[in-house]
């Protein structure tokens, strides 16, 4: 079960620039920290975050271990047509999560 919180407007006027904010539960384990047994805890991070609007990529971010746990990303998008924004997170250990938001543009 992925735990994701996304804030985006449900409606927008054509041409409006809207802010999209996204939080996801993830440890973002750096791969540099020793665990209780003294051995390094293997890296487990989200490597990539992407956003598409009706299938076209509008934003992408490559993340490093320097991104804080439970990553937060905010970016902007110009509302040109009604549609579905799909946010995707992928990373180590086969991590993949997705969240869809419908935005009606009038």
């Amino acid at each position, binding site marked *: 079960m992925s735990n994701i919180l996304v804030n985006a407007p449900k409606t927008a006027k054509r041409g409006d*620039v809207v802010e999209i*904010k996204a939080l996801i539960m993830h440890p973002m384990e*750096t791969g*540099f920290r*020793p*665990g*209780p047994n*003294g051995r390094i805890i293997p890296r487990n991070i989200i490597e990539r975050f992407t956003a598409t*609007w009706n299938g*076209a990529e*509008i*934003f*992408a*971010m*490559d*993340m*490093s*271990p*320097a*991104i*804080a*746990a439970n*990553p*937060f*990303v*905010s*970016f*902007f*998008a*110009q509302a*040109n047509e009604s549609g579905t924004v799909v946010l995707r997170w992928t990373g180590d250990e086969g991590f993949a999560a997705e969240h869809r938001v419908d935005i009606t543009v009038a």
Partner: protein
Amino acid sequence: MDRRLFLAGTAAIVVLPLGPAAATPDAMAEAIKKVIGEATPIEGRMKLDVPPLVENGSTVPLTVSVESPMTEADHVKAIHVFNEKNPQPNVFSARLGPRNGKAMVGTRIKLGDSQRIVAIAETSDGKFWSVGADVIVTLAACLEESP
């Protein structure tokens, strides 16, 4: 605490600063060069919003923005953030385009120590822009021992 563990811990403290796994201003410069090649970034048009003093380095809010009309003809293509002293110099690389309407990206980063953060933007005309900020990371009191 187990004596051997204590000794091992002490050794780690002594050895770590000399270890290979720490970024330096040079490592940051190297990482930036990988992105901009031989270009010289121009200081300006950018804003790096990060608190000058943070209570905890594990979650530092950071917002980068670039003055840009974000049109097809004139827009920001990418924003990269680097640091001097974490184990690796790269923080994130974001790809943007005219569909963003506004060249502004926010996230939260980890800072292992007080250091300088540099953000670089690439615009559609092939130019690079830069902005830097110094962050002082104070150490929280009453931390947790390793579980």
